[in-house]
Structure formats: C-alpha cells, structure tokens
C-alpha cells in the first residue's frame, strides 16, 4: 500500500529460493497474511488521520474500499484537510497512483487475467501484491497465488484497520490536542523513508520539499505539493541529458 521496502522485490527474490521446489502454497499464504496484518496496522492510522482531516467514517471507508492505494489515500485526505481544493486533492492522489500503472504493466503478462478477474485484479494491484508476485519470476502459478493471497489479505485487513481507526477517532473532539496533526506529516515521512535509497533520491526529496515550502505563501493550499511534481519531470530531463552526453563522449 505504501512505499514499504516490500517494493524492492529484488530483496525478496533470494529469500524465497528455498521454497522454490516446494509444491505447497502454504509458505506464500502465510507470508501474504503477515503482510496483510502489518498493513492493517497502518490502516488504523489512516482511519484516524482521515477523520482528523475532516472526512466522516463513510467517506473514509469509501476511500479504503474504492481507492485502495495507501499513499494516494493519505495524500487526498491530507490536501483536503489542509484546505486544498477538489482539483488539487484529486490530482495529487492520481499522480501518486501512477506507479500502480507500471505495476500492472509488469504483472499483466505473468498473471494473464481475463474477464471479471482482470477488473478485480486491477483493484488489488498495489505495492505489496506486486512485490510478492514479482518475487516468483520463474513460477507463474506461485506468482499468481502470491498476487491474489497478498492482494486479498491486504484489502480485507486494510479495510478493517481503516474502520477501527475511523470509529476510534470519531469519538475525539479536538484532533490537535492529541497531536493528530503531527501524525499526518509523520505518516508521509514513513511512506517516503524507504524510497530514499540513494544520494540522488535525497536530493530529489530536498529540492521538492524546498520548492513546496517556498510556494506556500503564494499559492492556494494544495498547489505547492502539485508543483513538486514538476521536479520529477525536471529531474528526468536532467538525467536524460546527462546520459545522452555520456553516450556521445563514448565513456559508457
């Protein structure tokens, strides 16, 4: 759901070698349940943060059922809670969800879904299910099992977590006194942390954060965050330019 280290499927590949010859799917199922339980735990914090941001229990639950991609959900309620408009909230959520398209692209040839399964499988295409499925590159039967078991276990436990957190938080009068307003950026930094894997990723994060802060006094709430998306485009251009030059110089 988030950018957990689950996404680094390379790490998981090796740890599974021992199970490669085992016909039983039980180890995969147990792992899928473990991932679901961990995700359910932060479903709790999503439910509470969503209520603190001004959504009601139904709206919060609708997000976990229908949107079902954690970073986008946190972003949508964060931008709305900060007074950002509809367009900024939706745009931030959709931009954050773009990686799910890439996940689906790499999963499709392995899962070979048809009919209803394709539409259901699409909704379960998230960080965790993708990482688990791609960790079985040579065993398509196990990859399919890992995808469905992880997707379903995360879906169910994420939604139970959301409901519990939302109901709990709806009994609280002032979110500020409980520090829930500090929990929101803490949630984002926990999602960001595992992605800061290199010096250039840190640079990307610092430039984006500085740009957003600099724009806060001048733009409507929500828009400074969207402006940071342009940093991704600029960084891509810089990297492309650099690799073109290296190729021309014959250094690579």
């Amino acid at each position, binding site marked *: 759901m988030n950018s957990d280290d689950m996404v680094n499927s390379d790490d998981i590949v090796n740890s599974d070698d021992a199970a490669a010859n085992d016909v039983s799917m039980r180890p995969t199922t147990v792992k899928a349940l473990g991932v679901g339980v961990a995700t359910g735990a*932060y479903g709790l914090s999503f439910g509470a943060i969503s209520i603190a941001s001004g959504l009601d229990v139904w709206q919060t639950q609708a997000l976990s059922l*229908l949107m079902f991609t954690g970073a986008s959900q946190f972003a949508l309620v964060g931008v709305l809670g900060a007074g950002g408009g509809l367009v900024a909230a939706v745009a931030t959520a959709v931009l954050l969800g773009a990686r799910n398209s890439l996940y689906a692209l790499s999963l499709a040839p392995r899962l070979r879904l048809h009919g209803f399964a394709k539409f259901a499988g*699409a*909704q379960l295409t998230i960080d965790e299910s993708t990482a688990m499925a791609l960790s079985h590159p040579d065993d398509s039967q196990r990859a399919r099992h890992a995808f469905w078991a992880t997707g379903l276990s995360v879906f169910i436990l994420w939604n139970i977590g959301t409901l519990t957190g939302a109901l709990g938080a709806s009994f609280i009068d002032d979110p500020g006194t409980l520090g829930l307003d*500090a929990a929101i950026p*803490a949630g984002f930094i926990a999602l960001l*942390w595992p992605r800061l894997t290199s010096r250039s990723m840190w640079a*990307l994060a610092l430039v984006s954060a500085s740009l957003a802060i600099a724009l806060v006094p001048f733009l409507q709430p929500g828009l400074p*965050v969207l402006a940071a998306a342009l940093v991704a485009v600029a960084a891509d251009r810089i990297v492309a330019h650099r690799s073109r030059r290296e190729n021309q110089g014959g250094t690579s």
Partner: protein
Amino acid sequence: MIWAAVLIGAAGTYSEKLLGHLLPAALLDNTTVRRITGYLPICLLSALVAVQTFATGTTLVIDARVAGVAAAVIALMLRAPFLVVVLVAAIVAALLRASGLSE
C-alpha cells in the same frame, strides 16, 4: 465537495490500475515513463511532509508538529514500524501542547 473528491479520486486511481492491465507491456521499455513514475512518489511525498509540517493555510509556522515529525524521523532511524512512527509523532506533539511549551 469531499464526496466528489473521494469518488473522482477513486475513479482516477482505479483507471490507472486497470490501464496497466490493458495496455501493451512494451510501454515499460520507455525510460522516460519509468523514470518519472519512479520519481513522482518521492517528489510528492517529500512536498507533503514539508507542507503538512510547516504550513497552516498559506502561512508558514513552527509549532508542535515540527517536534512531532523530528521524533518520527528518529523512530524511522531506529527502524520502528509505521504505526509506532505515527504514534510517536502524535504523542510528542500532544505532550508539548499539554505542557504549554508549544502551540
């Protein structure tokens, strides 16, 4: 307005997932697409951290949230799980406010 954001946002993110299952996998060969999609979460999440820590509306303020987020970073460095990180931030901010040290 909130319901519109919830439903339009959900339709948007679901379309992204479905699109990937319908389009040809050859799109993955495009380095620009791959790079930008990889960079986007880092740019947006770090901007969200910054804005949600320092902004109230269109003004920049330093309040108990900063201490909460700093505590969250320490928790992350100690490899605490997600829920603990979020709880630590909330507790630190709440304690600072209760003690009257910060708004």
